């Protein structure tokens, strides 16, 4: 009698475990069926809400299926390094150029056909040929409508180190765009001047936030009055809430604070679906996609002849505002990180 109970209990336990694991089996079967042999695998550091519509359109137009792995640009870059030559990825679409530079230096990318990037404006062109910019974003100064007077707006990013801005500024040292900006500053103005500026800002009580969205939120919340971020963050806030109490502006023309950054895509060297991958890159540089980037996401298109969103500054203004700089010169991210660490910012 007792052993019957125990046997029954063990059987029940086994059944329960099987039941617990069965959804996994079902899922696996369904998922494996969905993953077709010829589908492209894209690792995307760009968000799902932005990328999904593009993927749908691409699949419609070309019939090539794309499986997307979303994540942070940095996590995906580290994953690609860990996977090494065994990576299942065909494409890597990064939110900013730092990750692309790091992987490019490690020879992880396959060269792209020159016609893809030959026609791009100079500020978007990378001469390495291993990755190509898909959209641009300008660094801007976001400031509070309520607490910043007309005369208080700085004309150069270097002005922010001034005493009257003490305790009113926020930045995001861990953010890729910020680090790219510091790298650019080092290239154009030299390490010493950059280090001096960073130190002065830190001593002036610059508050640290985790990313650009948090900076814009902090301005709304009243914690800071100024922040340097990318141009589209505030625009997205304003799209949801036209009364948001902040505005943005460029610094004076040519100032390093107006750096133009890019999102970019590359094809992995190990990919054996090169043709389809190139088609995808071509699609991202097509008129439709470029209009999507500027219309829905408020970024700057890289394709000549595509008009930027009406809410953005015109391309001519952008060219006037942006500093003279080589995208490829910005590959020394390590040096920037070392500097930020030395100053205790990271």
């Amino acid at each position: 009698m007792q052993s019957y109970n125990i046997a029954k209990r063990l059987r029940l336990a086994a059944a329960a475990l099987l039941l617990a694991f069965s959804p996994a089996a079902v899922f696996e079967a369904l998922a494996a069926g969905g993953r077709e042999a010829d589908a492209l695998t894209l690792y995307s550091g760009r968000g799902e809400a932005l990328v999904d519509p593009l993927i749908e359109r691409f699949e419609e137009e070309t019939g090539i299926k794309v499986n997307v792995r979303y994540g942070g640009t940095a996590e995906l870059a580290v994953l690609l390094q860990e996977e090494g030559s065994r990576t299942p990825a065909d494409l890597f679409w990064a939110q900013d150029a730092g990750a692309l530079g790091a992987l490019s230096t490690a020879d992880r990318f396959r060269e792209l056909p020159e016609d893809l990037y030959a026609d791009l404006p100079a500020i978007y062109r990378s001469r390495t040929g291993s990755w190509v910019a898909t959209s641009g974003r300008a660094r801007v100064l976001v400031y509070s409508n309520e607490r910043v007077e007309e005369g208080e707006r700085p004309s150069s990013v270097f002005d922010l180190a001034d005493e009257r801005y003490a305790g009113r500024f926020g930045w995001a040292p861990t953010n890729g765009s910020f680090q790219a900006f510091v790298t650019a500053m080092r290239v154009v103005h030299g390490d010493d001047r950059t280090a001096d500026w960073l130190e002065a800002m830190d001593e002036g009580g610059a508050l640290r936030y985790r990313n650009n969205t948090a900076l814009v939120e902090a301005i709304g919340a009243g914690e800071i009055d100024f922040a340097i971020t990318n141009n589209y963050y505030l625009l997205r806030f304003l799209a949801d809430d036209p009364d948001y109490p902040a505005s943005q502006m460029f610094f004076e023309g040519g100032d390093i604070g107006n750096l133009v950054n890019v999102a970019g895509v590359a094809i992995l060297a190990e990919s054996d679906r090169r043709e389809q991958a190139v088609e995808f890159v071509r699609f991202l540089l097509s008129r439709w996609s470029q209009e999507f980037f500027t219309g829905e996401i408020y970024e700057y298109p890289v394709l000549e002849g595509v008009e930027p969103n009406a809410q953005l500054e015109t391309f001519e203004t952008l060219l006037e505002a942006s500093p003279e700089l080589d995208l490829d010169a910005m590959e020394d991210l390590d040096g920037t990180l070392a500097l930020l660490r030395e100053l205790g910012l990271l």
Partner: protein
Amino acid sequence: MPASGRRPPWFLLVAASIGAIGVLLPLAYLVLRAFEADLQAVQALVFRQRNLRLLFNTLTLSFTVLVGTTLLAVPLAFITVRTDIRHKRLLTILATLPLAVPGYVMAYALISLGGNYGILARLTGLALPRMSGLSGAAAALTLYTYPYLFLNLRAALAGVDPSYEETARSLGYGRTEIFFKVTLPHLRPALLAGWLVIGLYVLGDFGAVALMRYEVFSYAIFTQYHGAFDRVYAAWLSLMLLAMTVGVVGLEWRLLGRTKLWRSGSGVGRKPAEVPLGRTRPFAKLFVWLVILAAVGLPVLILSYWLLLAPPDLRPAQVAASFAASAAASVPAAALAALLALPVAYTAARYPSVISRTLERAAYIGYAIPPLALALAMVFFALRSAPALYQTLPLLILAYALNFQALAIGPIRSAVLQASPRLEEAARSLGRNRVEAFVSTVLPLLRRGIVAGGVLVFVIAMKELPITFLLAPTGYRTLAMNVFSRTSEAMLAQAAPYAAAIVVFSGLFIGFLLKHEGSR
């Protein structure tokens, strides 16, 4: 005769070792990466003063959170288990619900309260400064980790034999004296297990502290992976973190000592009599409801606010599919974790020795490994040994189970400590073998502990992010991934349905299991 001092049977050791061997894999990976380092760079990057400062912040935060969670969980557990307060089940479920809330949602909820553009300002015109720093981080972490301690304490309190307290009372001890001298020592294993889980969680947390702008040690690890895309120095920092873990776990074992909690005489196990609240009733009720309001009410308020502010176009099919994806990974992970934890907890309780201590320590190391490091380790080993498994669901389930098995150990261990070995001895003397004796006598008594362990793992797996991002099959979309991708683009209204789904489904699961866990 005490159970300790005897060697555990070989099959038990083998079963208990499986989880520990699993944890060895990520450890080996970290050591491998660490050896790729340039020693000078290690000096500059790892052993610098700033890291010490970050470490100090971490320890301060951990201590504050431990104090906070104890102050919340001990009275809560006592009130809901041992007093005559009404609606016990409801209060218990509500008090456990914060487990269902993802940490970043809770931190976001707290931050959204204040500021010129915050909820308080928009509803009442009152603009308080936003929560941040140590106080903000401690508040957020306390509010959503106290249930770990609460559940452990519940299991322990409910299992305390009333004859101890009755004996004490017959010897003339007053009620408060009994609580501090008799009841509290019984809770020591539960307290230590809960503190351990919470302490290790705080050591490794990055999400809530980042939102609260409080820089802790995990920040150093994060910036290695994120800024430098570097796995080598991140490995060094992770190993440092794990060294701390070993120290903390060792401390816990020392404090636990050789606690024996079972009834040594003859007699029947009974439910303890309820303590009448009397004049303290309104205070007790106020306390319980304040905690619930802060820990559950607040996130619910925020989510509702986001949903109402800009109603997103709800796509129930997508949310449902997302939920199915989350559950398909979390449920098997919970079962596997409980399975891995059971032999470890049993061995640790019945045959305390260096071996059992090491096995338990291994499980906690699995818990304390920075999730990104654990994920990369699984990538590394899967690609080299079983590439077919790479980016498949079973690998994700395994990673979850290895990471969270430690959560299940605490409740199960408390339950085993309260079950007398006499029962098994009696069964064996009647002719059963060891396994039969265990299954027929002790296993039913462990039900509450196993359930608590399984629930803890399920709920944390539902919210998990970094491992999921790296190991889930490409295209697999859990609820947590959906929430995160939308909140990081500041599309809060779109994130709300997914966050609400996590909270609701995890909450339902918690409620269902607590309702049916049965009584002794």
